[in-house]
């Protein structure tokens, strides 16, 4: 039995090889660079010639007064993004799924995909104009409605929500693709049976559509949880300023300012390693939870 399995599986495993080699070269190879985190890295002395300092760089980051604040901001901003993104994306996918007029559906899809392809460098310029308290479209509208003008990008209380809102606006359209694909995979016979039983559109959504795409939702959630310490460097870096450091500064922008500008490569690597370890732990945990609660296995 086992011999037979080997015989069939052997060629398949050989076909895996090129992929494994690429991963080894481009993913595992560079991991050697992690040693930088434990050294006072001097490029001219090379990867193994620099002085070893143990955990000094981790202690240094730990000792900075802003570190806690920054980690908190990172977690708050990216959890909010995760939840809002998920709800809006699934909602949109469900709504799109209900549209029967093909041309209309396609046009909507194209329009909401578009922002995904713009970089934050460009978008931040547009958003700074749109959100401007003096001349911005949004504030003109608020003023017209009789509200007070709000300095969205310069106000500590508003800034995290602006980040979440604009990120969702940019990404929700593109995110629907996965769910739309999952929706087409649901057996139409289930809907027919439900209609015969007298289920309304809403009941069908609740009892057929949502359970049908649960595996994909769990998969996407599990993958995002691993990214929770990445709150979006491109976005924050292009939109923030000293006035909103207290609520808008995230781990990546903080490391950029404290370590990378001054080429403190060791400190930057230490934080990167710290993030990876936490992410690895979170991914494992969320995978286990998904398995226990939803009985869903990715692997």
């Amino acid at each position, binding site marked *: 039995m086992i011999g037979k399995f080997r015989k069939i599986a052997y060629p398949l495993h050989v076909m895996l090889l090129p992929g494994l080699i690429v991963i080894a070269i481009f993913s595992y190879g560079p991991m050697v660079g992690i040693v930088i985190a434990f050294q006072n890295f001097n490029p001219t002395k090379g990867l193994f010639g620099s002085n070893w300092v143990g955990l000094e760089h981790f202690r240094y980051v730990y000792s900075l007064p802003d570190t806690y604040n920054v980690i908190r901001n990172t977690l708050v901003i990216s959890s909010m993004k995760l939840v809002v993104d998920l709800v809006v994306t699934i909602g949109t996918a469900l709504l799109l799924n209900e549209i029967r007029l093909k041309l209309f559906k396609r046009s909507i899809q194209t329009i909401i995909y578009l922002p995904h392809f713009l970089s934050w460098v460009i978008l*931040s*310029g547009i958003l*700074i104009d749109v959100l401007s308290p*003096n001349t911005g479209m949004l504030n003109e509208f608020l003023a017209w409605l009789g509200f007070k003008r709000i300095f969205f990008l*310069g106000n500590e209380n508003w800034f995290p929500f602006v980040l979440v809102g604009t990120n969702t606006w940019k990404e929700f359209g593109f995110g629907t693709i996965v769910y739309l694909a999952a929706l087409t995979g649901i057996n139409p016979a289930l809907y027919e049976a439900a209609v015969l039983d007298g289920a309304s559109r809403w009941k069908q959504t609740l009892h057929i559509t949502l359970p049908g795409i649960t595996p994909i939702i769990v998969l996407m959630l599990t993958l995002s949880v691993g990214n929770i310490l990445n709150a979006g460097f491109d976005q924050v870096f292009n*939109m923030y300023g*000293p*006035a909103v450091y207290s609520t808008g500064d995230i781990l990546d922008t903080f490391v950029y300012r*404290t370590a990378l500008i*001054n080429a403190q490569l060791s400190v930057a690597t230490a934080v990167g390693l710290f993030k990876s370890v936490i992410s690895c732990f979170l991914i494992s945990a969320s995978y286990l939870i998904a398995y226990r609660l939803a009985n869903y296995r990715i692997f």
Partner: protein
Amino acid sequence: MNARKWRKVSLAALIGTVTVVSACSKGGESSSGSSSPSPSTAASSSPSASAAPSVANGPLTKYPQEITVTTVRSANAATKYQAGDTLDSNIWTKSFKADLNINVTNKWTVSDQQFKNKLTVSMVSGDLPDFFLVDDQQLQLLVQAGQIMDLTDLYNKYATDLTKQTFGNDMKSVRMQAATFGGKLMAIPNGGGSHDDLPMVWVRKDWLDALNLQPPKTMDDVMNIAKAFANNDPDKNGKKDTFGLSLDYNLWGGWSGLDGFFNGYGAYAFNPTKGSGTNLVFLKGADGKPAYADIQPEVKTALGKLQELFKAGAINPEFSVIDGAKSGELATQGKVGMSFGQWWVGTWPIADMKKADPKVEWQAYPLVSADGKPVKGLSTSALPTKFYVINKNAKNPEAVFKLLNYFNEKVYGKTPDETYHQVVKDGTTYQVFSYAPIVGTPTETNQNDYEAIQAALQSNDATKLTPAANTYYTAIQKYKTGDFGNFVWWSTFGPSGAFGILGNYKKNNLVVESGYTAPPTETMVSKGPTLRDLEAKAFTKIIMGDPLDSFDDFVKQWKQQGGDQILKEVAESGKFN
């Protein structure tokens, strides 16, 4: 952000360097005669003369056999090349080969944005060329690792008088000391040594006239002008859509920075939001000990005045969100009437405004003080930020000095050759000098050009001008006849131009510099960035309306979170004076 920043830097600094480097020093005159063979003869592109066999290996002699020297290059996307020219093959590389028998090859060329990373990779792999350009931080690493050559003897032996002159003939100067480690010259400075970064105040003269205001004489005038520009409708369009004082979130800078504003109140704070946080200014306190410039009471006074301007609507309420490129756009859109800045403001961002609308009249004025007394400006550019270094394994290290000598001779020598400097063809300007793998950077060329051009303008005799100064002179004459596309030259070298103001500062020694010019101390490197953020936060918020007394909290926090340690290190470094 990177693209924006790059655009700002490339526009401003590119045009900046053009004028800095393009000017031709008169200093070359005294360089001939002493060394043999005379550098000017050797370089006057007569290979037979320079290959004089009597001298074995002089500062500009031709090698008997072709040698190869390697380097690496960074390419600026904005640089233009004539057909057939590249960074690998151009008038410089060809002349080096013909006149010196030196074959300069580029091991690699990358865009200037990737240069630093690529060089770091080369350092790690130990694959360094014979000579290359590094920043101050890389220089320190290379010195520590002992990978670069001690240039002390080479410099004395192979640098021509002209080359030495471009470094001010002074090994004790801040510029040369920055390249000296333990009494040994380890690098050739690129840039630095000048006070051309001293701030001035740029004002819309046409707005002053429209509101019947006089140019500023005191800081109170500056305050009143800023408020009037914001509230009295200087552009007469019936809308309150203008600001008095340009500011962006970087807080300091050569355009829309606060450097000059602080100086006006006797404060010398300097710590840009986007800077490294390690180039700090230390003044001598009353007790003779180093004092951090940014926590002095004068800074608090100035911040109070800025808060007053912010409340009066004279500062863009969005300054904490916009960068320099954006604040430049506001100026070109005619929304801002005043900005503190450096001499190159005329080249960017306001260069084309006069051409688009002849009524627009930007004018630079000298800094003013709160009490009307002469005011000193802060200069931080004496310290070079870039250096050429020579690999300790280089076979012909003296060849690098020959290249530098050759460059200086062609561009700043007694008989400069414009084809090596700048070529205008079919309306396009080619910055030929920038193709050279190593460039000389004399400090006062622009200043000297300014004086020469003023003399020429008065006597109507341009014959004594160097070729470069002559181009500026012609451009100024064109501006006078209404060709406002030449505003750049008018605002820089014209009779009321920025270099007139700089010349006056320099003549009267109205300069303040940090008492500490050595590399950053340990705590500066480790705590500097955090302290910079603390400062940026505090200053931004005070300007936006936080109680002025929160400045005292900032001072306390600064000291606690590492500032006291920094001051101690500076005092103990023995390099504070």
